[in-house]
């Protein structure tokens, strides 16, 4: 058997795990590992400018491909800088392995230079974390980390590696485990047959059914099954923010996404339904609004791989624990076999009502002769990219506009921090996607607040030639904060304006990219075209949009799902 040092074992394990790219930043405690990395060429390392960005890059990659991303950082500040990225991935159940250097085991607990208890610090925001206690364990620990990260409800796993575990001249036998088995971790591989049958009977009998599909459909690669089931049942389908693309936006059964800034029709459908089939979503507070007023007439079937997501905030009448693809497949079979067919008459009446709601509002905004509306920028980008780009976003109004007005027909294309709401996510996530899909169009919607939280990564984009398109919806304010201040604080705009914004065009140029400023309505389309024609260039589009625009619809705080503001003056 081969003898390898701990550092070489670590890198070899990544090779055996099939990892092509890792994202990171070196430092003292990780130097043996970086040396091992240098002496091979299978695993390629992307050097970011701040560790948080490394995590978001790995995250973007994971969301676009469904495979776990990998991060390598040093101890102390290197490790703590990853925390926001890890928490982002944790909230959205994104598979990821974060390898952190640590001071030598003999120094742990002595407040050594760059020592942080990363196991303790990361504990509340990881699916699991592991520390290496002997170099020989490294292959097993790495295999376990990837297995835990990618199976069941996915999530980030941190591996803490004290420097003396990677000493170059201490060599051990290397063997990468073919299979990982943990007696205490056995994610469900199928749902309970009796529960599935019961659910199908309810779905077929329902008069006003709706499918409420979340990020679990995207993560669980179940879009095909979801579409098949929805078509068999003939019912409306709404997505969560995380589930966008899990069901095609162009499908006539699609009613848009739901919740705080969801469509009027999807929130109305939810509130008036008699049966909700929740597929891989978690009745998050941004969806349900006040839980005690949530969908009073609906019985609820909830499919989720994570039992703890079921009946956490909203009680499920029929809980089904299992992977969504397997459960949906079984449901499809049962619906096909069922002697009872969906009630065509009831469904026709239901759709008539839904179309009325759609006609009443749908997605609309007021255009202006003077200002560029952020919504029209998103629509133009959608048209120019054929609706087929990978779209990442930061957090705030621009995120909502992008999600509302870019119509996604495919899963894994809409990449945003839904759960944690991390500003600074968009650019590095776009970089992670572009690196792995160099031939695809990758667009990052951002705002002048968010982009400045990780703007240093423009440098990384130059080094690795990552020609993403950055669409900065510049409203010269922290738009979502300002909107809430307009609505709830009598327009007292406390700290939501930033003075002295940089000249983003010059800034992009300083980093070696192209910057384009758009502040006239008539320039929008031609300049966007110009930008998207530059296939091999990163273009920073600084677009001055209407600073007074609000995101609508917006649910009324503490109301039910049907209580919404549809514009600054219309409340239903």
């Amino acid at each position: 058997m081969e003898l390898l040092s701990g550092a070489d074992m670590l890198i070899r394990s990544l090779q055996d795990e099939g990892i092509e790219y890792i994202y990171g930043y070196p430092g003292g405690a990780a130097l043996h590992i970086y040396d091992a990395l240098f002496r091979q060429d299978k695993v390629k390392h992307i050097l970011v400018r701040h560790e948080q960005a490394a995590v978001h890059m790995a995250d973007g990659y994971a969301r676009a491909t469904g495979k776990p991303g990998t991060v390598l950082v040093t101890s102390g500040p290197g490790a703590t800088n990853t925390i926001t990225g890890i928490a982002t991935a944790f909230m959205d159940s994104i598979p990821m392995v974060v390898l952190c250097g640590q001071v030598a085991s003999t120094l742990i607990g002595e407040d050594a230079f760059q020592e942080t208890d990363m196991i303790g610090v990361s504990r509340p925001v990881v699916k699991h974390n592991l520390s290496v206690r002997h170099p020989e364990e490294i292959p097993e620990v790495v295999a376990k980390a990837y297995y835990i990260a990618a199976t069941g409800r996915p999530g980030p796993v941190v591996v803490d590696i004290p420097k003396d575990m990677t000493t170059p001249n201490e060599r051990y036998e290397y063997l990468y485990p073919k299979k990982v088995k943990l007696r205490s971790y056995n994610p469900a591989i199928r749902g309970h047959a009796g529960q599935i049958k019961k659910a199908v009977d309810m779905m077929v009998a329902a008069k006003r059914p709706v499918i409420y599909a979340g990020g679990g459909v995207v993560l669980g690669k179940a879009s095909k099954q979801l579409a098949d089931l929805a078509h068999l049942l003939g019912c409306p389908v709404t997505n969560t923010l995380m589930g966008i693309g899990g069901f095609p936006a162009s499908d006539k059964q699609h009613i848009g996404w739901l919740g705080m800034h969801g469509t009027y029709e999807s929130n109305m459908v939810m509130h008036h339904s008699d049966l909700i089939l929740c597929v891989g979503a978690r009745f998050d507070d941004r969806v349900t609004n006040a839980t005690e007023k949530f969908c009073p007439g609906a019985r609820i079937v909830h499919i989720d791989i994570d039992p703890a997501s079921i009946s956490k905030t909203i009680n499920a009448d029929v809980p089904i624990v299992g992977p969504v693809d397997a459960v949906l497949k079984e449901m499809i079979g049962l619906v096909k076999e069922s002697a009872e067919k969906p009630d065509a008459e009831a469904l026709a009446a239901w759709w008539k009502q839904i179309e009325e709601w759609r006609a009443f509002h749908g997605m609309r905004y007021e255009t202006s002769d003077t200002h560029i509306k952020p919504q029209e920028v998103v629509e133009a980008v959608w048209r120019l990219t054929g609706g087929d780009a990978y779209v990442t976003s930061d957090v705030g109004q621009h995120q909502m506009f992008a999600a509302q007005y870019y119509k996604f027909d495919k899963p894994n294309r809409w990449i945003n921090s839904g759960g944690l709401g991390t500003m600074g996510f968009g650019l590095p996530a776009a970089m992670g996607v572009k690196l792995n899909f160099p031939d695809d169009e990758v667009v990052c919607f951002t705002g002048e607040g968010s982009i400045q939280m990780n703007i240093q990564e423009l440098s990384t984009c130059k080094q690795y030639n990552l020609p993403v398109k950055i669409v900065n919806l510049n409203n010269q304010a922290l738009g979502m904060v300002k909107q809430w201040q307009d609505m709830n604080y009598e327009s007292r705009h406390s700290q939501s304006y930033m003075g002295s914004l940089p000249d983003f065009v010059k800034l992009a140029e300083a980093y070696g990219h192209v910057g384009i400023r758009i502040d006239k309505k008539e320039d929008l389309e031609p300049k966007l075209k110009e930008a998207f024609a530059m296939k091999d260039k990163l273009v920073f589009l600084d677009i001055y949009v209407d600073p007074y625009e609000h995101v609508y619809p917006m649910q009324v705080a503490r109301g039910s799902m049907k209580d919404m503001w549809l514009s600054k003056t219309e409340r239903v």
Partner: protein
Amino acid sequence: MRRIISVLLENEPGALSRVVGLFSQRNYNIETLTVAPTEDETLSRLTVTTTGSDRVIEQITKQLNKLIEVVKLVDLTEGAHIERELMLVKLKATGSQRAEIKRTVDIFRGQIVDVTSTVYTVQLAGNSEKLDAFIQSVGTSGVLEVVRTGVSGIARGEKVLSL
């Protein structure tokens, strides 16, 4: 409602902190917590008493089960069970108090395990209410120090919590 949850946990460094951390992260109560290795050296057994609505208790057991190092758990209060807690109490014992304390200790089936000219140290086992009742009987004014282990529990009958 008060519940006693018994957990078999991988006997690994850090496993206990995950359990304790979970309770504080999610705003659950811990009333008592005991943990010790079992006859199988790879496992620890942890007993936690907590209170909460049915929904909260369901979440607690589900969230505990989600921890990778939790191998198995049972809510003992769902069935017939035995619970015990051990208490050591240091009591001021001078003059006529000495006989009175001795009598009370006997009634509670406790033992005086250490004696000085002014102090008795009493050992008492039982369920938590019994220990509370003892403290009440001797009166808090004479109590110098109390140490309790927290609740341990086991199901009655043939039900066992094992791999």
